[in-house]
């Protein structure tokens, strides 16, 4: 009982279904782990202890339900996913007391599958950041080394899974926000194809980029969570109506015979830390041993991805965040005597520095005289970037590369905004193109002892292939241990 938290989601789901473990035991174990580790990790903005336990006891009274694949499994949500009756803050003062009266579609689906929501995870304010230092409430720490960041913006989700506080978490990925914390925290993180999971109930940052995805301790766990959440949703006009394959059935391959993996020269060159390169090359060598063929290729527009991404993301952010005006929800300045003054003072008090910077930048690139030079130009380069990927996928099934050029940096390593944006160099392209990407932990850096993630990217809706290749590789690499806390 005391070490239930060390199990994977798949293992605990099986034990819950067989009756070997009750849902209340699973929840209590996670809450105990939260109590022990949270003072160091600070992964959660809200812990739903009593509610979760009541719900678990009610479920136990009825007994396991084989039709609900996540029956009794404790799960954590990133705090920008609406959960009915639960504070949803986006790690911002402007939404500090916001309590949605509806569930996001992904949350509805998790609940229908039997999952128990036990907490809401810290994040960069409105998902703007790569380290989870931009939260209005606290800085989350990396469970592997509390002096280091967990990555962002889903850093709370990454840290809570890596610390054993839950069996899986939801993150969102606008420019790498699932893959970055997954890589830094040594867990699996999957950003599905844009449109694969409904975005209804996700508080938007960059609407044409954001995608919800699972963060978990194994590839199979991620596949189980994706299976539950994937599918068309008429409430979301960006949701895509295509069949959902059986992701679990795709797992279990013995080797990688016939799989062609593209290695873009732009991802493997200068700038990659040596310890990251060593760990990644060992994983690539293992994939070759398992039968995969490596295909050298070029994604020649990689250098333009960051500029393209930030223009589009900031433009969309400035538009999305205009809804926070203090009228219907969120923080309101009490002293304003006039309407426009109320908008301005409420927003000035409620948003943090990084959010304000991106709103101003986004407004600037959308403003008359600059729209064509920045936003429209970026939208054109975005198409070229997607065509770059389409050409690459004529030569290979999946692309492999680093998630980030380094392991997790230390909290006190100060970066300018531009330096912070540049670390997303390998992740943002997948969001611009709308294709799936994932981070698979492949080992520890020999100098830092910190986790290193291998990024896999594939054509749109190729998650089943990606998961099957990742699981085969995972089975043949040294198992990634839990962070020692």
């Amino acid at each position: 009982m005391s070490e239930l938290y060390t199990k994977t989601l798949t293992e605990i789901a099986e034990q819950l279904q067989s009756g070997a473990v009750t849902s209340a035991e699973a929840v209590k174990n996670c809450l105990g782990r939260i109590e022990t580790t949270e003072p160091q990790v600070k992964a959660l903005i809200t812990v739903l202890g009593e509610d979760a336990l009541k719900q678990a006891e009610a479920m136990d009274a009825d007994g396991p339900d084989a039709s609900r694949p996540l029956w009794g499994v404790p799960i954590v949500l990133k705090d920008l996913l609406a959960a009915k009756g639960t504070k949803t803050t986006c790690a911002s003062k402007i939404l500090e007391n916001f309590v949605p009266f509806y569930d996001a579609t992904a949350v509805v689906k998790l609940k229908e599958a039997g999952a128990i929501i036990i907490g809401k995870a810290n994040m960069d304010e409105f998902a703007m950041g790569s380290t989870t230092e931009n939260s209005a409430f606290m800085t989350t720490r990396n469970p592997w080394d509390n002096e280091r960041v967990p990555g962002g913006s889903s850093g709370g989700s990454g840290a809570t899974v890596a610390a054993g506080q839950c069996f899986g978490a939801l993150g969102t990925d606008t420019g790498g926000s699932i893959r970055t914390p997954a890589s830094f925290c040594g867990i699996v993180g999957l950003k599905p194809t844009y449109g694969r999971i409904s975005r209804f109930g996700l508080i938007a940052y960059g609407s044409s980029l954001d995608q919800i995805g699972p963060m978990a301790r194994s590839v199979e766990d991620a596949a189980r969570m994706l299976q539950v959440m994937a599918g068309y949703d008429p409430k979301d006009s960006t949701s895509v109506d295509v069949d959902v394959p059986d992701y679990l059935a795709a797992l279990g391959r013995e080797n990688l015979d016939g799989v062609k993996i593209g290695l873009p020269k732009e991802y493997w060159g200068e700038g990659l830390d040596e310890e990251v390169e060593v760990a990644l090359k060992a994983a690539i060598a293992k994939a070759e041993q398992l039968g995969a063929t490596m295909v050298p290729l070029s994604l020649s527009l990689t250098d333009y991805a960051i500029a393209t991404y930030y223009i589009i993301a900031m433009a969309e952010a400035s538009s999305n965040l205009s809804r926070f005006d203090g009228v219907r929800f969120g923080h309101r300045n009490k002293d304003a005597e006039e309407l426009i003054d109320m908008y301005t003072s409420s927003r000035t008090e409620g948003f943090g520095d990084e959010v304000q910077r991106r709103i101003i930048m986004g407004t600037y690139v959308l403003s008359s005289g600059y729209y064509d030079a920045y936003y429209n130009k970026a939208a054109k380069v975005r198409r070229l970037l997607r065509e770059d990927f389409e050409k690459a996928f004529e030569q290979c099934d999946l692309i492999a590369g680093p998630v980030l050029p380094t392991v997790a940096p230390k909290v006190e390593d100060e970066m300018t905004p531009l330096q912070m944006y540049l670390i997303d160099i390998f992740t943002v392209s997948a969001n611009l193109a709308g294709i799936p990407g994932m981070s698979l932990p492949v080992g520890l850096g020999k100098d830092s002892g910190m986790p290193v993630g291998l990024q896999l990217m594939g054509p749109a809706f190729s998650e089943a292939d990606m998961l099957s290749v990742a699981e085969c590789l995972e089975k043949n690499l040294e198992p990634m241990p839990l962070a020692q806390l």
Partner: protein
Amino acid sequence: MKISPEEVAKVAKLSRLDLPQDKLELFAGQLGDILDYMDKLGELDTESVEPMYSPVKHTTVLRKDEVKKEYTRDDVLSNAPEQDGQFFIVPRIV
């Protein structure tokens, strides 16, 4: 590209933000650096390229033309900073 604190103040005003002078100066320097970096997109010839605004086609979803009440007035007003049980209350406009 150099951007002045006055230009930042103008854009901030359009964004309904009111920043103190020290922050205007800080943002002006940072935004200048970011815009310099973004200017590298000018190296690419995109004359004949159709812009791509989203990876998917957005569809207009129409629900059945039936009267339906998904949320109550209390639900909708539940997060309002100020309301009278019927309406959102805001400060005067003029």
